[in-house]
């Protein structure tokens, strides 16, 4: 569950995010889309508690898990990375590695993984822990089509099993449309369109949103 009220984030005199109200019920999956610099990462970081809003109130159900845009590979093996701080979940970690096609790399040094493999490992590292709110900043940006499909499958199963709220940002239309039951288009830090993916696709709320969706070439 997320509740945002009159949230504003400014850097000196530049406003990068301005949201009047936003409520996301528990269990909903929300996809944030929009061009570079539209405020997706800022919103996710505020929800994750990694950034303080300049104004307004933010309520988010704890515990929150957050996957940054550039996840870091800690020293040690892939399995060691996943079990950091949660050593009792070895079985679950191995299952997740298998689901994301990383099991054969479990003893490899995490720092030597490719971009796509690192993203999959970083997601496994989060999903081995329970949460009420899962925040993902471009979780499939480095993945190929097969890798993306694997990740989306794992995410769907995790959401069904835990009933968590999920907010993800993406530049890939397929990820937004196949994962989320609600879509928000951000432009210049404000909400340009908000609703179900099919509703927005059929009848975008503004000309700008219409133009943005036209660029998706679905």
């Amino acid at each position, binding site marked *: 569950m997320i509740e945002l009220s009159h949230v504003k984030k400014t850097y000196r005199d530049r406003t990068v995010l301005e949201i009047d109200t936003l409520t996301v019920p528990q269990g909903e999956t929300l996809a944030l889309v929009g061009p570079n610099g539209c405020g997706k990462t800022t919103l996710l970081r505020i929800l*994750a*508690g*990694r950034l303080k809003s300049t104004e307004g109130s933010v309520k988010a159900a704890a*515990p*929150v*898990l*957050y*996957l*940054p845009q*550039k*996840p*870091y590979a*800690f*020293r040690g093996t892939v399995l060691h990375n996943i079990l*950091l*701080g949660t050593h009792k979940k070895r079985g679950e970690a191995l299952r997740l590695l298998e689901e994301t096609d990383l099991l054969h790399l479990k003893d490899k040094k995490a720092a030597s993984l490719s971009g796509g493999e690192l993203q999959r490992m*970083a997601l496994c*590292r*989060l999903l081995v*822990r329970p*949460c009420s709110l899962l*925040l993902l900043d471009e979780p499939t940006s480095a993945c190929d089509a097969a890798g993306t499909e694997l990740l989306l499958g794992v995410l769907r199963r995790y959401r069904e099993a835990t009933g968590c709220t999920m907010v993800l940002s993406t530049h890939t239309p397929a990820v937004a449309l196949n994962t989320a039951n609600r879509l928000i288009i951000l432009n210049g830090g404000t909400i340009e369109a908000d609703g179900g993916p099919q509703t927005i696709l059929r009848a975008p709320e503004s000309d700008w949103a219409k133009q943005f969706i036209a660029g998706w070439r679905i």
Partner: protein
Amino acid sequence: MEESFRKAFELLLSRDPELLQILGVTLRMSFFSTTISCLIGLPLGTLLGTHRFPGKGVLKKLIHTLMGLPPVVAGLIVYMLFTHYGPFGRLNLLFTVDVMVVAQCLLITPVVIGLSSSYMETATKHTIETAKGMGLSRGRVLFLCLSENRASLLSVVLNAFGRSIAEVGAVSIVGGNIQWKTRVMTTAIMLETNKGKFHFALALGIVLLLVAFVVNVAASWTVREARDD
């Protein structure tokens, strides 16, 4: 120069008891002052580099100023603290190796804090973002920051050791350069130079450099191992 090198090796090979005693005091003093400074400075530097709090800018400026603290001033401050009429006079530590370690800690700790905080400020951005995103505790995040950057932090430790072993001003004021007690390599070099025994002073200098070289080689090996890990 040739004469000095010959003398340096003769000194080392002769196992001169006074030289060995001076070398022992030097290494003991440098080891303890580096260890104490790093035990205090590395966690503080990590906190300073990875956290935001009111007054951080002022604190950083203060640390950077203290990084340039002249050794003789540090020596003078510690001397005044530990002299008979000073607040710690009753401890009777003046002209001992212990107080030399205290003076060196006063000099080196700001260097360790300053260097480690500058490094951590830039190097741990993704580490912290990822670790906090995983919901890890503050203690574990701090531990990860230290552990992930151990190779670079080792170079901070080496820097501290280098400053400690080469320091002369503070240790000569609070230690007094007493033979068989508080004489270290640098104060011995100073004394021999004042006596006009330049070859002997240079020989001691070469021994000091050799010791620093051995420590550096050992540390470089450790850093490489840490990086490869």
